[in-house]
């Protein structure tokens, strides 16, 4: 037993070392930095205790960025999974070209983010020449065609629509892979017993897919909380405060843009809050989603 333990530890050691060096140490270092007023340019860091965290509480832009992030997490998550389930059910209903549809729905996940942001902000949402405006006008929906999808009032919702469109495909593929594992005999037996599609969905599909759904929701939560690339690139030259997420605002405050704000200590405090939020959300989700595993 002792020899076995020693063997296990020996094999675990390299990976653990890498984990400590590239994750644990930087995370602890970041936590330490968050208690300082530091620009990052030199060693002149001034200890300020919890001042950075107190300032977060008063910072309207941070509060707005956190609100945006949580909206993406919750509202975005509900819509993504709702659409993913709907498309999964449709694709599994026996239609022809299932694999082709699945590939098309998954396609945005393999296209570069910068190409997607350009497509949405220029080709689709352009107030004059955009596909959406002209398509709506062509369909006779004149009042809808005058909507400025990238005005300050609408830009966040428009960006979220694009984020949802990009992400739905990934979760469709995830759910379909899970559904493919469910024995068809269960559905046949249910049909014989008189179950309809909705009943089969709630009584068979969802319970047997529960662990896949849990993994999917946790993945979505982590990605939604730390989302950066799309909001950053959506407004080409510099991110708009209306589309700030916590990760974007952290970058603005810590890494300097055209205005040279270099508050690395403050930005790190945001990072710590973000990590704690992720941990809290994952813990809550794991508890809420816990149920007995059904073997089949």
């Amino acid at each position: 037993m002792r020899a076995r333990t020693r063997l296990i530890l020996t094999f675990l050691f390299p990976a653990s070392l890498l984990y400590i060096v590239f994750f644990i140490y930087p995370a602890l270092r970041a936590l330490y930095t968050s208690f300082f007023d530091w620009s990052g340019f030199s060693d002149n860091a001034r200890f300020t205790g919890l001042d950075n965290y107190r300032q977060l509480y008063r910072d309207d832009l941070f509060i707005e960025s956190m609100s945006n992030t949580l909206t993406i997490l919750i509202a975005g998550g509900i819509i993504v999974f709702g659409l993913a389930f709907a498309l999964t059910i449709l694709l599994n209903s026996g239609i022809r070209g299932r694999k082709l549809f699945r590939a098309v729905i998954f396609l945005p996940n393999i296209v570069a983010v910068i190409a997607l942001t350009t497509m949405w902000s220029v080709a689709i949402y352009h107030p004059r020449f955009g596909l959406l405006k002209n398509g709506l006008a062509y369909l006779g929906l004149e009042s809808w065609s005058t909507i400025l999808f990238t005005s300050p009032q609408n830009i966040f919702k428009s960006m979220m629509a694009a984020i949802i469109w990009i992400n739905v495909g990934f979760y469709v593929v995830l759910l379909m892979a899970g559904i493919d594992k469910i024995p068809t005999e269960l559905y046949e037996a249910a049909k014989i017993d008189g179950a309809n599609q909705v009943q089969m969905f709630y009584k068979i599909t969802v319970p047997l897919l529960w662990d896949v759904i849990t993994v999917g929701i946790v993945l979505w939560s982590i990605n939604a909380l730390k989302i950066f690339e799309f909001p950053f690139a959506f407004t080409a030259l510099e991110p708009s405060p209306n589309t700030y997420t916590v990760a974007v605002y952290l970058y603005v405050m810590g890494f300097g843009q055209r205005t040279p704000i270099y508050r690395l200590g403050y930005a790190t405090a945001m990072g710590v809050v973000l990590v704690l939020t992720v941990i809290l959300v994952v813990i809550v989700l794991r508890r809420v989603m816990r149920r007995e595993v059904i073997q089949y």
Partner: protein
Amino acid sequence: MKNVKLLTLLLVAALALPLGVGVSSGQDEVKLVYWSMWNETEPQAQVIQSWIEAFEAANPNIDIQATWNGRQNQTLVRTALSAGETIDFVDQDADPISGGLVAEGLALPLNEYLDETALDEDMPVRDVFTPGTLDLFAVDGQVYLWPYVYNTSQFWYNKDAFAEVGIEQPPATWEEFLDACQKLLDAGYDPIAAESDIQFYQIDYLTYQAVRYGGVGFLLQTLEDPTGEMWRDPIYLQAAQNMRELWDKGYIPPESAGYLWPAGQQTLGVGLAAMELVGSWLPIELANVVEGSFEWGGFNFPAMPDGAGDQNDLMVYLLSFMVVKDTEHPREIADFLKFITTQENMQQMADEALVGVTRVDVEWAPEIADGAAAAANATAVFGMADGGVALYPELVNNILYVNWSKLFLGEITPEEFVETMVDDQAEYWANAG
């Protein structure tokens, strides 16, 4: 005879020996590390690369290693310097580098090198610079930045559109400006192009109005007021009302509230709009969009009624070199900077990169000739947000830009803008420590 020959050889060798020592010590290999804000394929980078090659050819013992980082250069330099990496000199937009590396005390003062004679003129090299550019970001008389690219902030306009509606001379006063906008609107143009998401374009309307009404430094003084009460000065309410007037009258078309860069400026390039308040890079950015016969013009922000400022006071975006304080080779870097500042090299930058430059006797590209004239005639120059970006970046970015943008896009009224600035700025200074 043999002894004479031997003696002669020994004598020649003895005489030649110090020369050999002198030559080898004077030709010590010097490596200079340069981190650049340009991407390698950009015309400005290619010009700088040619400068480096020419300088190295003239100074075979000097090797300049360039790293083309792109616009995040200062952020990357920060990390590298913290990690102990050797970087000798860098370049960047002057406003951010002044508020970054220079403010952190990492820049070498350049006064002594600027007092040296220029390579191609019998005068101190500081005298070949366009007036105002060297001192703009000086700190207590010390110059830390060696500017080389000069961008002006002006209204860049379609000369044919203006001529079509009978505007022979660009407007010089606010009243003439509004009149010009109305004529353009009546003729079917969008008078002014604007972007909804570029706050540092939008703020130029406030910066210029503050400077025209109150003089250079007035906005900066306002930003420095710890109570924020200077925002109650009537000029700021007037400036905000003037801004809304441009929108309310349709001079800035309503769909501009949804234009994400570069959608707004594209409308100028394709002839839908007539002008835009922006940097002198615009004609070059739109070079592939405009028709071949498009004639560019630029005019200064108009004078405001009863304003204390001069219409020739000019906002500039400078791009500058900076020498890292701890470099071991300041002499060689200074020689390189003097080399690039010759008329020939500056003209090459102006011709090949189609940008304005900071040397007086250089001709700019025809598209931005009005920028050159504005630079030559400038009564004073000032930086972004009247210097506020360099000195108070967080106040400017997180409070001024945000609130002005809300005003610009109609989310708040002029009165709300003033009150919000008073409150937010007071809170900022109270917490600034």
